[in-house]
């Protein structure tokens, strides 16, 4: 069923944009940042405020969401996160959980607990018919935008100097340091970029699943699953796993609504059993 496939892909790509930052930072600094979803939520609310409080165009809110959350991410990385790299995973988990709780309450305080609604600009409403499939313009827009982002990301990682340094650092930090790469600076940049992408993802996602303060908790598991399945050593891994999950989730709910909810979890656990390093991740010495 073509429509379902499209919906699934749109959903999957969105998940990828949301999660890729987490995956890279995890692979790079081996840092478990459960609060990643908070940045996505920030992006979503930025859109809500811009579009509905100030009537700015949805299209402008997207880059804004990216930039603002990126800056926010960079700031938090320099001030807070940087103090936890040498701490145990437990500490990192607790710390980021703490951040989640704070962000949830803060958003509740400023924006209220109820769901926020983002109305799409008319140019993105409506649907497109071909080969019997009907695709919402907005989903199409999401698919195109996310694909472009992915390609861009891939280019940045493979073609640019920053990219090669980043990959070097992910492969082996000590060696990278030896080569005189300023890993912590690379990481700050990556973290900012990842947060920014999450923010953008949140903004893009807001029209589908209207965001509310519990967003970071609701989606934490999705991010983790994307990474668990995709591994943290590449970005192609999370990419495919996100697609897989998106399609599996949507198709599951369409064809077997009864057990739709289980599918993603089952995939995750199965993968963790048979390939702890992730379905697409490669075995690393570490």
């Amino acid at each position, binding site marked *: 069923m073509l429509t379902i496939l499209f919906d699934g892909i749109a959903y999957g790509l969105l998940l990828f944009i949301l999660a890729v930052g987490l995956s890279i930072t995890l692979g790079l600094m081996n840092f*478990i940042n459960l609060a990643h979803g908070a940045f996505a939520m920030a992006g979503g609310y930025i859109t809500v405020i811009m579009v509905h409080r100030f009537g700015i165009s949805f299209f402008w809110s997207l880059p804004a969401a990216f930039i603002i959350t990126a800056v926010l991410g960079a700031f938090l990385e320099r001030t807070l996160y940087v103090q936890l790299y040498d701490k145990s995973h437990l500490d990192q988990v607790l710390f980021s959980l*703490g951040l989640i709780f704070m962000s949830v309450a*803060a958003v*509740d305080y400023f924006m209220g607990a109820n769901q926020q609604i983002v109305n799409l600009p008319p140019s993105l409403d409506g649907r497109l018919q071909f080969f019997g499939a009907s695709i919402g313009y907005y989903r199409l827009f999401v698919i195109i935008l996310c694909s472009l982002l992915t390609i861009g990301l891939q280019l940045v990682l493979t073609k640019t100097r920053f990219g090669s340094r980043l990959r070097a650092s992910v492969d082996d930090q000590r060696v990278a340091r030896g080569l005189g790469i300023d890993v912590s600076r690379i990481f700050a940049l990556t973290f900012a970029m990842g947060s920014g992408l999450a923010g953008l993802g949140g903004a893009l996602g807001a029209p589908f699943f209207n965001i509310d303060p519990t967003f970071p908790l609701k989606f934490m598991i999705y991010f*983790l699953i994307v990474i668990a399945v995709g591994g943290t050593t590449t970005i192609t891994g999370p990419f495919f796993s996100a697609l897989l999950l998106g399609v599996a989730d949507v198709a599951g709910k369409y064809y077997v609504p009864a057990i739709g909810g*289980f599918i993603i979890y089952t995939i995750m656990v199965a993968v963790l*059993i048979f390939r702890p390093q992730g379905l697409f991740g490669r075995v690393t010495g570490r």
Partner: protein
Amino acid sequence: MTSLAAGARVATADPGAHLVAKARWRWPEFLLWLFAIALIWLAPSRYLLFNEIAILALLALSIDLVLGFSGIVTLGQGAFYGLGAYTAGLMAKHGIGTFPWSDPLLGLLGAGLVAGFVGFLSSFLVLRGSDLTRLMVTLGVALIVQELGNKLDWITGGADGLQGVMPAPLLGLFDFDIFGRTAYLYSLSVLFVLFLLARALVNSPSGLSLRAIKGNVIRARAIGIPVERRLVVIYTIGAAYAGIAGALLAQTTQFVSLDVLSFEKSADALLIVVFGGVGTLYGALVGSIAFKAMYDVLASATPEYWSFWLGLALVLLVLFARGGIIGLLTALRDRLDRARSARA
């Protein structure tokens, strides 16, 4: 290095005694338990809250066994808690009146067995891979159990919760009264017994070998400790403990809702252990008291933003006071000791 000198002195005397001394009961412990009992007369109007605390403490204890003594980071203890709750709940519901099935103690046993068994099975997943993998597996298992609880609504009552849980009178004598007096005494005694067991375990050679695994797996293996087997055992025990905590909840509130399986439950319990102090057993108890007390104060002031304070406390804790409450207290004691021996 005063402690060194002191050590040497005792050592020459009798090293064994010095080791055993570590397991000796200290006065704050007695004080804590006496306080818990005293509450029965101190604040008879809050039995229900105390009951919740006792149950929470048991759940936290189960996490401390897994996390604090073998270093497994778990976000899924709620799964076992919930399993226990539903097991005991169903036993009490369908065995109404009929002695054996609706008997509370038997309910505890059943809950412990079921939770323990599932814990045993899932432990093999938990053994694999890194902290992250463990985090994911525990979380994943919890989510699946939660989804099951929701889907199998003809058994669990689904989102409406399990109604009509009517456990038989405790020991056939004490009914669960509306004031929660029986409930609190019951939960407290169960907590105490299980705590004694846990305390004995961690002070025993097996406890030592668990701490060894947490301390340094390579060396633990090199001296012949079968790491995997030990982890399976402790994880299973932890699961059983959580299950019994759940059973207590089901029996004393005579109701089970899907909330028992929620991620927040697991998270809360984990936080409690950290608040109290990981790997101290008492952290679980003190932590849950502090947690609920904090909730009583902060939440009654601003219910909406309770989670903000919780988060803040957590962040500060990680950044500044890793030992938790117990950690702070012991640090204080050590400083005092040093001060005294300096004066001496």
